[in-house]
């Protein structure tokens, strides 16, 4: 037996013994993992530094939530399924589940999300840098060497078995490299068997590492997310009505063509460009009727033949509306203008206004009173003591006010027409013009004089009264107000 042979044997003995010890330890850890809830953790980031560094291997023990205390280092899955190992800042136990606030020692703030757990892996201790070894062993290269080891062991077992079959002598002293003692005495059949097992073993040695590579776990490492929000407004345009009530006469005009120009500012970029519908009109037959852009203004031109009697002395109402160019369905609100044509072919038209008068009640008001109290109230509220009703109105032009007064007493509806009459068929009463005082402070008072005792009768006057007042200005703009009051 050569010296080399004994060296090889000694090396094999050492390798086998060390391998057996490591293998037994690994089996023990695996068993502990399975039966005692012990979990090894590889730290892939330094958020727990300096207590635990990147690459350390931690050993954690699975414990119920109730045993967790502030200061423990625990490993839990977050809502994304990512395992986070941080120190407990606070633990709030409700029933058997705890709400944990965790913070990495190296982090400035606690984790954003609280963790609700019924149990967690609590770190018992950590082994510096061992995580790198475990990760390496878990990787393709580790798997390769693992397969190599399996193949080598299988080869060893097959070899020793075939030798035992061929030689009853102590196999531990036999020379595995040459089969020196038994080889020569082997029968041809046995030698073939030995060759076969050797070939199978060699094949295993070669194929197992490759199989290990193919089946090896793909190292998908968890990661944290960094969300970046981008916001952008999407606001639909509100198409504006033609803005402005600028009405100018076309001067000088002729006895065959007169008219008005209605102007408003043109839209300015970046606002969407606008187009305008063909203007509508009333009471006349126009010669021209169109909207055009003139510099920074939109100009609606409407002309008519003043010599045509049908066009004379008419209040003309013009309307128009805008829409985004190319989008005819997106119409703006309507803008209206008014003008009055002259009474002769030689008379220029007059620009008017479209604002209706404002009208208000002073007395009576909407408060319910006895008949006597109502009369007293009206007498004090209205400056003209003999009235049955009064109020105010306001307009830029001349206004006429008329009214109807209706009452329902004991289920009978009647209208006021100098006396209470039955003319209230269908509830419509005849309107009477109210009187008006001279304008004062921009406001004018309307009133109706009649005997208070006749209108609001002391006997049989209790009921529901409806006073309707209609104000019409000289441009035929109308406002109607209705007041209902109850007398007892």
């Amino acid at each position: 037996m050569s010296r080399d042979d004994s060296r090889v044997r000694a090396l094999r003995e050492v390798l086998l013994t060390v391998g057996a010890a490591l293998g037994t330890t690994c089996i023990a850890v695996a068993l502990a993992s399975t039966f005692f809830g012990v979990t090894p953790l590889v730290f892939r980031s330094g958020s727990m530094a300096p207590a635990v560094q990147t690459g350390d291997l931690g050993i954690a023990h699975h414990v119920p939530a109730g045993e967790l205390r502030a200061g423990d280092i625990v490993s839990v899955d977050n809502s994304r399924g990512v395992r986070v190992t941080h120190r407990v800042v606070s633990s709030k136990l409700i029933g058997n589940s705890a709400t944990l606030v965790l913070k990495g020692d190296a982090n400035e703030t606690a984790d954003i999300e609280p963790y609700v757990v019924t149990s967690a892996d609590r770190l018992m201790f950590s082994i510096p840098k061992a995580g790198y070894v475990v990760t390496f062993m878990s990787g393709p290269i580790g798997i390769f060497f693992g397969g190599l080891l399996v193949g080598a062991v299988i080869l060893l077992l097959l070899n020793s078995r075939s030798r035992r079959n061929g030689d009853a002598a102590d196999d531990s002293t036999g020379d595995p490299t040459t089969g020196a003692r038994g080889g020569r005495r082997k029968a041809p059949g046995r030698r073939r068997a030995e060759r076969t097992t050797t070939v199978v073993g060699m094949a295993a040695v070669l194929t197992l590492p490759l199989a290990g590579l193919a089946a090896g776990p793909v190292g998908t490492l968890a990661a944290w997310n960094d969300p970046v929000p981008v916001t952008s407004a999407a606001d639909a345009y509100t198409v504006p009505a033609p803005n402005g009530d600028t009405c100018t006469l076309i001067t000088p005009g002729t006895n065959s063509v007169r008219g008005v120009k209605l102007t408003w500012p043109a839209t300015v970029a970046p606002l969407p460009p606008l187009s305008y519908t063909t203007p509508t009109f009333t009471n006349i037959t126009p010669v021209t009727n169109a909207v055009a852009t003139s510099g920074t203004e939109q100009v609606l031109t409407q002309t008519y033949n003043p010599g045509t009697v049908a066009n004379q002395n008419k209040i003309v109402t013009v309307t128009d509306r805008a829409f985004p160019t190319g989008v005819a369905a997106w119409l703006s609100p309507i803008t209206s203008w008014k003008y009055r044509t002259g009474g002769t072919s030689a008379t220029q038209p007059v620009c008017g206004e479209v604002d209706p008068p404002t009208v208000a009640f002073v007395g009576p008001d909407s408060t319910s009173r006895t008949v006597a109290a109502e009369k007293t109230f009206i007498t004090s509220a209205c400056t003209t003591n003999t009235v049955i009703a009064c109020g105010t109105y306001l307009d830029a032009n001349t206004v006429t006010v008329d009214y109807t007064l209706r009452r329902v007493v004991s289920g009978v509806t009647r209208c006021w027409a100098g006396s209470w009459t039955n003319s209230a068929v269908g509830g419509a009463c005849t309107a009477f013009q109210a009187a008006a005082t001279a304008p004062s402070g921009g406001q004018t008072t309307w009133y109706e004089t009649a005997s208070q005792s006749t209108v609001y009768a002391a006997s049989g006057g209790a009921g529901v009264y409806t006073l309707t007042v209609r104000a019409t200005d000289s441009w035929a703009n109308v406002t109607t107000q209705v007041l209902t009051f109850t007398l007892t």
Partner: protein
Amino acid sequence: MSVRLRAVLSLGILVAPAGVGTMAFWTDNVAISGATYTAGTLNLKVNSNDAYATTTLAMATMVPGNTSAEVLTVQNVGNVPIKYSLQGGLTGTDAAALAPDLTLTVRAGGTRTITGTGPSYTCTGGTQIYNAVLTTTTTTDIITAAAKRGPVAATSGTDALCFQVTFSATAATTQQGKTASATFTFVGTSDLS
């Protein structure tokens, strides 16, 4: 001990690593919420911002047929490679009303181009990766987590996406004055695999 017993026991080494794939014993630990990393920092920016409220893509006075576009450049300023997904939708008062009339188109590598006479920017060129009506769910996938873009290289890697929002040419007149806000969230994930 016999050779065979020790040989078999040595196979025990394989037990622990073998558990990785099947038992998920080896798990990752990541630092979060503005953490100080020793292994790396994860930092995604869009057009140099950690949160970007854009007026370029916005339409303040949109009318039917309008489009707006902007190239959003995803930048990786951290020191690890990043992959990212993208979610988005419409929020705000009239999100539900406007959503059916607003279409989002995303072209990877596209450029912003003005078309026609009006202020109507569109995305041209590149590869169209998304084209659908916006929803009122801001977590609607535009780039799914399963089909993340990237990796965007660490430190200075970029990825340019051209976003185009189109307001339907047939939007009803009742949409006038409706307001909403489109929200897109780029979710960067460290690409350590």
